[in-house]
């Protein structure tokens, strides 16, 4: 049954979009818990990068491609770089 509220070549039925959004929300919640619970330094930064990608896909499912681009470049690339540089500086003094 065609349950498209808006008829363009890009929209999918509302039920499919609902399932997609619920799945992504559950994944994002699990990712956030994982980021907080991991205590090893570099592994946590890697998990933060994966969390950024999950968040970007969630924003795409919320019909916001601009915010997706921002979150992808910042949360998955630039923030881990800056945090890893800080960790390198701190660890070098510890040796």
């Amino acid at each position: 049954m065609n349950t498209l509220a808006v008829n363009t070549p890009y929209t999918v039925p509302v039920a499919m979009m609902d399932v997609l959004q619920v799945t992504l929300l559950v994944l994002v919640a699990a990712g956030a818990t994982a980021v907080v619970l991991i205590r090893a330094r570099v592994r946590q930064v890697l998990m933060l990068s994966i969390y950024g990608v999950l968040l970007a896909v969630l924003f795409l499912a919320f019909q916001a491609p601009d915010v997706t681009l921002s979150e992808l470049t910042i949360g998955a690339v630039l923030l881990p770089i800056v945090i890893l540089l800080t960790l390198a500086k701190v660890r070098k003094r510890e040796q």
Partner: protein
Amino acid sequence: MQVFPFVVVAWILGVGLYGVVTSRHLVHQIICLIVAQSSTYVLLLGVGYVTGAVAPYYFDVPNHTPAVDPVVQACALTDVVVEAAVTALLLSFAVQAYKRFGTLDPQELAELKG
């Protein structure tokens, strides 16, 4: 589905705050602050969503197609970029604190004087 995204927002915020409160390392605390901030992006986009609508860009769909709210997207967009710069500032404070006091444990740093 009516309230599930907002419940997830509350969960992410709570988890992030738990990480900030019970952290033993300043960099871990800053990462948990990033997670707590990301809950506000989800909240902003969740408030403006219209069921069955498209993204508010009209270069390939006809004009006046029902779209989601563009104002909250504009807010979230600048939000993401600016918080990254503020996080970098926080990290540079952490670096200088380590040089000065020799420790990055927030519960020890709170007791040091001068």
